[in-house]
């Protein structure tokens, strides 16, 4: 009997080399590739696996992750919703949808996903970090036309003295209320919403890294460089053309920050 069992094992080993892999094997290999940042190969394997097992939850979850990695939000959302249809408390699918809701600035949708993910898995660190971050947000960043109105002293641009080369100067409260902007209303609200969201998430990231509260930021893009200045109440953002010297941008932002605080009667 021992000899026959040995022959059987050898036969299994040989046939496993020539047999096409099953869906589980493909998904396992796809996940390994994904963890190495080899997203294209992982996506090919997931597609192959889902052709063999179209309803496989692991496959759809991997597909969602890969869509997110490729910044394809619509397809990622569909895949995560598919996973939740089979398992309404799947923590990773809930976290994925919470992240998408955050990107869409839909805090009302984001919070329940995080709460649900943590209901059965309270030690889920990523979901806990995001929940703690959004818990401190008094309200969602308002939709255009619905921003809370600023009720403080009016600011005069000639007293703030924004630099000649600067553009898109915006001053907002940390709750998203627009205090002052050089732009028209609609653009100013969109800009203030983005600046507020960056402030909130950057603050949470710095706190999580044990570095303290956000004071300054620089965001470099192909055509402009934006400078941020903030304290616990106010956020200032100012952009310059991309070729600005960083030192000059910091200096001008600091001057504008000082002028803004003085005009608002806030002690630096």
């Amino acid at each position, binding site marked *: 009997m021992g000899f026959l069992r040995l022959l059987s094992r050898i036969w299994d080993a040989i046939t496993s080399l020539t047999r096409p892999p099953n869906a589980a094997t493909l998904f396992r290999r796809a996940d390994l590739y994904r963890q190495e940042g080899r997203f294209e190969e992982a996506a090919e394997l997931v597609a192959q696996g889902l052709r063999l097992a179209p309803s496989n939850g692991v496959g759809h979850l991997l597909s969602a992750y890969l869509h997110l990695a490729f910044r394809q939000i619509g397809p990622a959302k569909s895949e995560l919703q598919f996973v939740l249809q089979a398992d309404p408390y799947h923590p990773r699918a809930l976290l994925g949808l919470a992240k998408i809701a955050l990107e869409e600035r839909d805090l009302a949708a984001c919070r329940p996903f995080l709460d649900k993910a943590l209901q059965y898995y309270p030690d889920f660190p990523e979901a806990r970090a995001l929940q703690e*971050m959004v818990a401190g947000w008094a309200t969602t960043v308002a939709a255009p036309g619905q921003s809370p109105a600023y009720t403080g002293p009016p600011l005069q641009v000639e007293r703030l003295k924004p630099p000649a080369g600067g553009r898109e100067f915006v001053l907002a409260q940390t709750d998203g209320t627009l205090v002052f902007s050089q732009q028209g209303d609609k653009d100013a609200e969109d800009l203030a919403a*983005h600046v507020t969201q960056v402030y909130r998430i950057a603050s949470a990231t*710095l706190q999580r890294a044990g*570095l*303290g509260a956000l004071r300054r930021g620089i965001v470099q893009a192909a055509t*402009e460089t934006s400078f941020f200045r903030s304290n616990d109440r106010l956020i200032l953002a100012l952009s310059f053309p991309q070729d600005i010297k*960083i030192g000059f941008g910091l200096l001008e932002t600091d001057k504008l920050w000082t002028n803004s605080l003085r005009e608002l009667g806030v002690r630096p």
Partner: protein
Amino acid sequence: MSAESIVPGRAARAREFRRILAEMLKIDRVRGGLVVAADGLVIAASLPRGIAVEPLAALAATLGRELEVGADRLKRTPFHAALFSADNGTVFLGSSPVGFVVVLGDREVNVGLVQWALRKALATLEGAWGTASHVPATPEDM
């Protein structure tokens, strides 16, 4: 045609991520760093004791995505690098096709040097992905 033959060097990507991170960690006053995909998956990480990887990666990926999505909403060009400073240090964030490179520096970190090293690292990552960008020869040229 196999996936491997379309873009050379994919198999070496994981090694490249770890090498890039190791190079960043050699810079004086850099305390740690990580490479995180846009979905929050940690691809490589080295953080000081006491800082949990997954929560920081989740927040850093969320920040990176807000910078990407916000630029798109405002019809701006995509961001390629950012830094955010607090009283006790700075978080540097670089965008690449694979996701985000995150570097943590203490309050004495040489910001210009890290920015330049990050630009070099991002160019390497883009090269591994099939697109490459120009990097100034020295930090002073930035």
